[in-house]
């Protein structure tokens, strides 16, 4: 039984790796064509190439972090973390990617929530992964507004942190089906993204390592992906 579990886990990690390698083709292709266009026209845009390369590096880093956190799950440093501060830093990290895809980034951290228990680096990497996936998909989704909102709100089970956009077709079924098809289909999230959706699955793996769950959620009239975090009890002792 344990062996089957280990095999399943190995298969799952291979599927994630496959998904990441497929995804990496996109920025590498963008760099190759941009460089070739520069040669043909004599006008290379080094900033464009730099941003694209950095987004590829980001994906690799987040994937590696996901693997590392899963391997070191028992020693994970879960600590009180400010969601507002994580979302702010996520926004900073996503800013240039969003600009390069013509997507407006909004930060909605209006609620005053106390700290939550999380692995800060992991939470931020998961949100950056999700954000990048949605930013890349938004221009092709025929949405009315090219806007991505990083937001937090309180729900019955805790504090939600997530990325939201005007994507009505994003449902829990989309995510469930995507998880089933990850590594087996070229487009596991066919109604959400035209590529392998690796960013979503990397975020899923990172959150799983922190004992959190990636969920489809709503923020006002927007649809998105996020996770429910537990408020830190430590503060209540103060």
């Amino acid at each position: 039984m344990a062996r089957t579990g280990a095999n399943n886990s190995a298969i799952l990690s291979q599927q994630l790796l496959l998904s990441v390698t497929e995804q990496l083709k996109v920025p590498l292709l963008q760099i190759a064509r941009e460089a070739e266009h520069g040669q043909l026209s004599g006008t290379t845009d080094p900033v464009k190439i730099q941003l694209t390369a950095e987004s590829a590096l980001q994906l690799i880093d987040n994937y590696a972090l996901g693997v590392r956190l899963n391997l070191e799950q028992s020693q994970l440093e879960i600590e009180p973390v400010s969601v507002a501060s994580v979302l702010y830093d996520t926004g900073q990290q996503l800013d240039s990617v969003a600009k390069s895809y013509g997507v407006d980034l909004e930060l909605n951290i209006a609620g005053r929530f106390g700290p939550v228990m999380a692995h800060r680096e992991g939470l931020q990497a998961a949100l950056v992964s999700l954000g990048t996936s949605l930013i890349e998909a938004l221009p092709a989704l025929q949405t009315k507004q090219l806007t991505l909102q990083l937001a937090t709100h309180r729900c019955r089970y805790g504090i939600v942190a997530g990325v939201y956009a005007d994507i009505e077709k994003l449902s829990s079924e989309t995510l469930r089906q995507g998880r089933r098809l990850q590594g087996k289909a070229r487009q596991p999230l066919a109604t959400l993204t035209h590529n392998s959706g690796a960013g979503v699955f990397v975020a899923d793996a990172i959150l799983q390592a922190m004992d959190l769950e990636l969920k489809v959620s709503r923020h006002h009239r927007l649809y998105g992906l996020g996770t429910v975090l537990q408020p830190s009890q430590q503060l209540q002792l103060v």
Partner: protein
Amino acid sequence: MAHMLFIEPDRKLAEVYAQTFNESGHSTQVASSAQSAILAVDDQLPDVIILELQLIEHSGVEFLYELRSYPEWQTIPVVVLSNIPPNEFDSSHDLLMNELGVRAYHYKPRTSLTKLLSVVQEHVAVKA
């Protein structure tokens, strides 16, 4: 000079393809989905369509079925430029090439801009 329709969901790639073809004297239009591509064809008949098969919601194959269902659009040359390696379409080769009228299948990672320009030139020349 030809009028090209690129059906490409990736914004950055679409931009670089369109820019390259515009600079080579062609006019271009970009559609990021199957639905918007049908509207684009209706808006201005392209001389050649360059099609990615991996699209959001409706695939490139669904687009082809829709396109070819209109008699006046049955002869528009379509060149597939996809991230899906051609060997994965071996079993559907007849469907794509014969039934859906795809003129050529190119694997995106191995197709340079120069190659794409020459492929398009070939199909525009055939049409002329």
